[in-house]
């Protein structure tokens, strides 16, 4: 089995356009959630989302073009033989919005493979290209597939990119489902009342040990374990027992050869919705004799849907490097079952392994265990 290293990362969210800006914003407890300017929100139950201001202006193409451009601005070159996995739930859905409103007929970024080709062509990649869609676990699953390819010796280099936009399409849908908070996103708070959407994109370049040596890559951390499992319970609500998430985490621990006590911290999905957060707390309390410190980034950047797994994996790598996890923005009164291990302050951590999890519509769950870089 080949070790899977992360050798390059990039991220764009409402908190900033690079890893340092996003990490600094998260660590300072800032939020990028603000009133939406790109469409009218009068008819919806919330007016807040984590939009990237530079994407607000109307444009003839999809906002996804600009987002991808921002993500890869200044990135060093990616090896041409790199295999590409993209992850998105709705790709360039703003094009479909304009088509319905008869403002445009362009539909060249609406389908998943069009987004994969946009990135693959931009970077000049000639390896295999795949787009994965699995609701809010899309990027996490893409990462597990990419890591598997390297572990099994089927690729030396894999690029995983997750991305999704704040669109009226998705905003109106979550509003209609009454899944949006009217005021703020408060993950793991006793008074949480819903999620808020965000947009963003992130990439992780994965490489085998051999490629790291050959190319002189510095490892930013290792993907040590992963798991994917379904609840088989309900189409929009998570299982109250957390059975699917528990299964996915147990798979990841088994894959990494670790015990729950080896986990220094958890980056939770933490949407701020009543049932998701309760399900996660149930799963964590089932798995861990003593809960490790945990946090959610969604009060700071919003729920970035298909991108969140990639964004949160990058935050997890930063957490391991700095040996602390960011505050859970929006948290005021923590759920008692969180055992005071979730906080609105930065929490110090001590250890080499961090668990990150995501769950989504359809009852899909995915988890990844990251190992701190030996070079940290």
């Amino acid at each position: 089995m080949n070790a899977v290293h992360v050798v390059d990362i990039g991220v764009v969210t409402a908190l900033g356009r690079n890893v340092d800006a996003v990490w600094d914003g998260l660590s300072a407890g800032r939020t990028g959630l603000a009133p939406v300017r790109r469409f009218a929100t009068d008819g919806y139950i919330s007016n807040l989302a984590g939009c990237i201001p530079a994407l607000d202006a109307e444009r003839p193409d999809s906002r996804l073009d600009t987002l991808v451009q921002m993500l890869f601005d200044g990135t060093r070159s990616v090896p041409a033989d790199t295999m590409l996995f993209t992850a998105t739930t709705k790709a360039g859905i703003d094009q479909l919005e304009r088509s319905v409103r008869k403002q445009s007929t362009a539909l060249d970024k609406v389908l998943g493979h069009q987004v994969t080709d946009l990135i693959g062509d931009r970077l000049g990649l000639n390896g295999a290209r795949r787009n994965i869609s699995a609701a809010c676990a899309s990027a996490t699953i893409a990462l597990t597939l990419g890591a598997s390819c390297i572990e099994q010796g089927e690729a030396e280099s894999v690029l995983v990119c997750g991305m999704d936009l704040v669109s009226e399409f998705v905003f109106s849908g979550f509003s209609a489902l009454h899944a949006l908070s009217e005021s703020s996103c408060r993950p793991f708070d006793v008074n949480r009342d819903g999620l808020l959407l965000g947009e963003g994109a992130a990439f992780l370049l994965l490489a085998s040990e051999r490629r790291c040596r050959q190319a002189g890559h510095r490892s930013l951390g290792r993907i040590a374990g992963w798991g994917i499992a379904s609840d088989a319970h309900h189409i929009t609500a998570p299982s109250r027992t957390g059975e699917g998430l528990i299964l996915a985490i147990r798979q990841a621990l088994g894959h990494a050869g670790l015990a729950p006590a080896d986990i220094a911290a958890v980056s939770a999905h933490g949407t701020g919705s009543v049932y998701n957060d309760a399900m996660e707390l149930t799963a964590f309390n089932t798995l861990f004799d003593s809960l490790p410190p945990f946090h959610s980034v969604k009060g700071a950047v919003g729920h970035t849907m298909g991108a969140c797994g990639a964004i949160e994996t990058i935050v997890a790598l930063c957490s391991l490097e700095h040996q602390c996890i960011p505050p859970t923005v929006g948290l005021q009164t923590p759920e008692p079952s969180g055992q005071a291990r979730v906080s609105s302050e930065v929490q110090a951590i001590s250890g080499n392994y961090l668990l990150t999890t995501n769950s989504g519509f359809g009852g899909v769950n995915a988890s990844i265990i990251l190992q701190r870089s030996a070079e940290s």
Partner: protein
Amino acid sequence: MRLDIKGIGWVTPSGIGSGQRDETLVLAPGKLPALKSRLFLETPHPRFGRFDLYAKAGFGAIALAMKSAGLDRWTQKRAIGLVAGTRRGCLAADLAYFKTAAFHGGTMASPNLFAYTLSSTVLGEASIQFGLTGPSFVIDDSEGHLAGVHAALDLMHWGLCETAAAGWCDVDSEIMSGSGKEPCGAVFVLLERNADAGSWQWNGGELTFGTERINDLAQLARIVLKDRHSNE
């Protein structure tokens, strides 16, 4: 990796089927037959009427493949994976949903339609119906209609599951060019890893039956049906 293909199900313009002797599978453009849950299940599905056509076709083909493999009844949830390849996914549902949301300030947005604007929702419905807890995702399939099967074979090869329902699902969308000219429908097979299996083999990029390399879904289905009937 050696494997068995234990079941097959399809929904195409020429009809639905699960590998019986008198059934033929034709992948072609056209209009799908009227789909009701009773065609696929013994008891009506409570949400089937809300499904978009993509979900109806995909769910139906998965249900038929599960039945064909004798796995449609269960008491304990099973770690069976679910992978679908698609090109257009739920684009038609996207369009139908946004027509309810685009006007009147979004106040008429339909939550029922929105629930089916993820191409993976159909897999969630199938996982609930059949108690499947394995990995589940949709992969883009722009040619050959085999991306879903290949991705599921990878999952099995990598040890992420031992059994998977995998296939392809696509329906027409009025706003996409090429609509009406490409095959539509759904075809799923039930794959099971088996070190003692005979002819099916996956070598991490190529699926073979004996010495024959499988290049597309129609060829795969043809061989599965021939193999099934020769073993009866």
